């Protein structure tokens, strides 16, 4: 157990896991990297189709080279840990959508040259939904994969 990591996280707990990733220097979220590149239209979109359009990803090819790790059933819908790793060469950004959320676009990350295209976030899911990861490559192509995450009332097991 790394006590330094833990106290560091507590110190910035308001921003949760995102802060941990930032503190660890792994990635830089779009809004921090360049405030003027903040895609307000995409994050404010009220349905998945509009959000995808706003990031230019209306048509994406399904890919098995994107590793989307999410629980089958959420332990706590308020903080669902999701990891996306892209094994697609020349990945320049990864976006994550919770298709049934009121504001579906949950996160978007840009990766500068040489950065490993992996992100981990905790998202809030209001109900059972598919989460969809989109990868953009340097030549402007989009790839995607998705997984169903169940949000249940709980109890009654076993």
């Amino acid at each position: 157990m790394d006590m330094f990591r833990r106290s560091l996280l507590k110190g910035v707990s308001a921003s949760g896991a995102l802060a941990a990733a930032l503190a660890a220097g792994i990635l830089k979220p779009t809004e921090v990297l360049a405030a003027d590149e903040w895609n307000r239209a995409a994050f404010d979109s009220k349905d998945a189709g509009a959000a995808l359009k706003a990031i230019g990803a209306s048509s994406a090819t399904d890919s098995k080279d994107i590793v989307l790790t999410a629980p089958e059933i959420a332990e706590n819908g308020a903080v669902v840990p999701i990891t996306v790793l892209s094994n697609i060469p020349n990945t320049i950004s990864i976006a994550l959508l919770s298709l049934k959320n009121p504001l579906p676009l949950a996160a978007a990350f840009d990766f500068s040259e040489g950065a490993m295209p992996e992100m981990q976030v905790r998202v809030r899911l209001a109900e059972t939904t598919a989460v969809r990861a989109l990868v953009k490559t340097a030549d402007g192509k989009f790839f995607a994969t998705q997984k169903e995450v169940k949000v249940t009332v709980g109890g009654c097991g076993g």
Partner: protein
Amino acid sequence: MNRREFLQVLAAASAAGFALDSPDLLAAQGGERLYDLPRHGNVHLLHFTDCHAQLLPVWFREPSVNIGFGDAAGHVPHLVGEHLLKAFGIKAGSREAHAFTFLDFQQAAKAYGKVGGFAHLATLVKQLKVSRPGALLLDGGDTWQGSATALWSKGQDMVDACKLLGVDVMTGHWEFTLGDKRVKEIVDKDFAGKVDFVAQNVVTTDFNDPVFSPYTIRDMNGVKVAIIGQSFPYTPIANPRWMVPDWSFGIQDENMQKTVDDARAKGARVVVVLSHNGMDVDLKMASRVTGIDAILGGHTHDGVPQPVKVKNAGGITLVTNAGSNGKFLGVLDFDMKNGRIADFRYKLLPVFSNLLPADADMVALIEKVRAPYKDKLGEKLAVTEGLLYRRGNFNGSWDQLILDAMIDVKGADLAFSPGFRWGTSILPGEAITFEQLMDQTAITYPHSTLTEMTGEQIKTILEDVGDNLFNPDPYYQQGGDMVRVGGLAYTCDPAATMGNRIQDMRLRGKPLEAGKKYKVAGWAPVAEGASGEPIWEVVARWLRDRKTVTPRQLNAPRLIGLDRNPGLA
């Protein structure tokens, strides 16, 4: 002798007051040979699971409803009664038929006697450890919960009994409902240097650091054997999350693969997963993860006589499930030749109390832990006229009794009781003791509740729980049975999609109205800060008032589309 003739003999013998465990009758039935299991090979694993803290012998009726869908339909473990006997070539009316099925339960129970009991299990374990030097005893979990004494001693009676039994490795599920601190205390103090508590899928919520050792490697007769732990993946969902707030679970296939590869790299020639996934999840996991020789499973309480061989990219993985309530002991032998598994033998041995003498040391321990509570445990609350049992996908008679009591005592329109799979049985004419009531209710969050819910909310709950049981993908199932419903009639189409399974809900003949509020009684709320009289007090009061309980009318739903499902008797 066919089954009908055999039952007639039994009935006649019962009527004549014969001792049915007499050597003659046992010989006729092959009882004495049941435990005569010659050693095979050089790697030996003994496995019990889901004993639910039953230290004494019990009655336990296997389910008559254990439905499988899609790929699981008609396959192990979703076979009941005659279908199960046929699949495994078990003779109808035999001792084993009684162990593995509900058929002729009352008659056969009287003929063959009680099952399980730690003192009898201890004798069997000792016997097998003599014939199988180096054998490891594995405990699949759900061991520290399920009885009054386990609840009142915070699991200590079972911890001590398991140490005496000689458990080598364990994993968990209901253990976690004692709270994270208590679990850690037992693992770090009581178990230190004696029992390895393993779980590859329990990590801290902040940095995913492992909470327990993912696996242990033991040297057995010159072979390195790895035992990987897999705790119940949905513990913080099916049970109160606030009891383990800093721990995260989940199935974690990828980490399982890494753990298997790691154990192999460290020299393990046999890799076994001690799992509390539930059998359907184990079967899917076995098809995805490579390098596992066997998954010894529990959670779903399926007594499966022989392993299922699952093919995957790396070869074949055996998947077993070893029943519940101390009723079975699984024996898996591997024969290693030139560093590889040449072949295996497996037997799921039923523990018949009257065939196995009680182990004196275990008897002494059990008497000691029970002594302080003896009067309370023995209180006779009422006599039951009907058979009481719980297990099955829909209402069993024990839960029906609990539902009926809640509706009466709380003045509710309808009632919900959780779809737990643990809980023993009581034969007609027997007294219901306080201890037996606790066998159905002994949990650390026993609050009974009365809540106003709209018809729509009631439907949402039924759909939600229905999906946890009937989702076609086992990774989205939780392994419990359907929530038991009292007062409300409904129709269930298990193969439908979520939101469409529950239909035609009626209360006293009238359709349930979506917008109308109803008084709903329940128990076992998973939310933090819940309050309410413990359910056992509510039911005990109701039983004491009655003195005699008539056979319960099961409020089972009308089922659609299951006419030929072999999971339904």
